């Protein structure tokens, strides 16, 4: 595991073989985001470099502010899509920011009922992503709104009503798990 100066963030593997990523660079993005989001817990990041897919998950041991957080990412989540196998700090900020906001949500009692990330349905995933996307944008991270909107439409339907739900979710800052929409 590669640690950063504060030793709060660990990244594995330390050296990548199949992609041109640097564990220290990933750790630096996580540290920057943790400060921005207000996350003081120790964070371990595991990157699966055998796949170009981009699934991510966050696991939080308990709701305490020193409970370890584990982020698991497939390598595509951090990839520069213009130069495959290369790291993109812009994409890393968007993707890690999203999964770290989820981790922060999980530290709240009103997210206690949320299933583990890998067990979320596609609509649950999409709704939570939209809630994270809007908050990330307000934190100053550049996020492509239309991509979130298209994903949300794919999961909830292509209609004005669904777009209105998206807009409300995108603008929200203080929701609980049961405030997120579920597919009918």
């Amino acid at each position, binding site marked *: 595991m590669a640690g950063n100066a504060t030793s709060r963030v660990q990244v594995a593997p330390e050296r990548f*073989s*199949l*992609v041109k990523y640097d564990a220290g660079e990933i750790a630096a993005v996580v540290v920057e985001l943790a400060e921005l989001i207000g996350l003081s817990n120790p964070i371990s990041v595991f990157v*699966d*470099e*055998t*796949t*170009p*897919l*981009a*699934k991510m998950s966050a696991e939080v041991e308990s709701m305490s502010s020193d409970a370890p957080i584990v982020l698991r990412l*497939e*390598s595509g989540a951090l990839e520069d*899509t*213009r*130069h*495959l*196998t290369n790291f993109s700090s812009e994409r890393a900020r968007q993707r890690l920011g999203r999964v770290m906001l989820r981790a922060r949500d999980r530290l709240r009692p009103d997210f206690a009922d949320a299933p583990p990330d*890998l067990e979320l349905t*596609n609509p649950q*995933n999409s709704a939570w992503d939209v809630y994270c996307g809007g908050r990330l944008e307000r934190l100053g991270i550049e996020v*492509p*709104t*239309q*991509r*979130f*909107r*298209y*994903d949300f*439409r*794919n999961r909830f*339907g*292509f209609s004005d009503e669904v777009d209105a739900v998206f807009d409300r979710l995108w603008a929200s800052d203080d929701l609980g798990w049961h405030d997120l929409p579920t597919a009918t």
Partner: protein
Amino acid sequence: MRQFFPVEDLARDDRFVQTNMAERMADTRTAVDLKKTAKSRGASNRLTPDRHDASDAARSLMHGIMVGEIQALEGAGRTAHDFDAGDGSEGTIPFELKLDMARQAWDEARHVEISAKLSDWMGTEIGQFQENTVLFEAACSNDPVLRLAGVNRALEGLAIDVFTQMKEFGQLADDPFLEFCEDWMLADEVTHVKMGSDWLRRVTENDPDRRAKALEFQQVVDKLFSFGGARGESEESPIGLARRFRELAGFTDDEVDTIAEMDHEALEERKAAVRLAQESAGV
């Protein structure tokens, strides 16, 4: 105006980053779950809306379609321009074939515009993904008959498979534009393949060796366009082989069977290469 344009000289602005097959195949990661352990990789890799990464995968494919259409436009346009009108021998092509290529270029230009608008609708920026120039490379032969085999039958055949997949995606997701647009473009692609099949037959009517060479070239290109098994009848392939529409375009059952076998070979070869590379890297 200059004839026989090499792939390196294609006109692109700085939004585009180009790659080729050698670079793509050098990436030894795979979406296929070789160890059958990862939760994110289900039994099927088929591009359908129920995949967790459906929107991202659809965006990437749509961008691939858009740059593919640009290259198809360039390929058809070059064929209309590069060869003098004649009887089809000694580097000439019948004038009517030039007209068909011009019509195809017009269709492809429309497809580029449609695909760019669909990309925008799906949240993709132009140039967001790299452009594989392998499609245009199939349009660089000095023999127009090889271009017909490579572009109109292999490339446009691939387009039939891809458009069918995206049309079904749009249908299942209930996307009001995607299914409609893909359906219209699919109809054009079927026509382009049919044009290629008809012209290839007519131009080589009295030259069986040339026809055999062209069909052999098509097989080479078809295997390349399988992209290591990304297209095929296996559930591990994101893009299926659109048998019905290929039939409408003039492919025989035997020809489609041959393509399916080559796709399967390409997939197995790719899996073996990736497995070996990952074992060597110790991951």
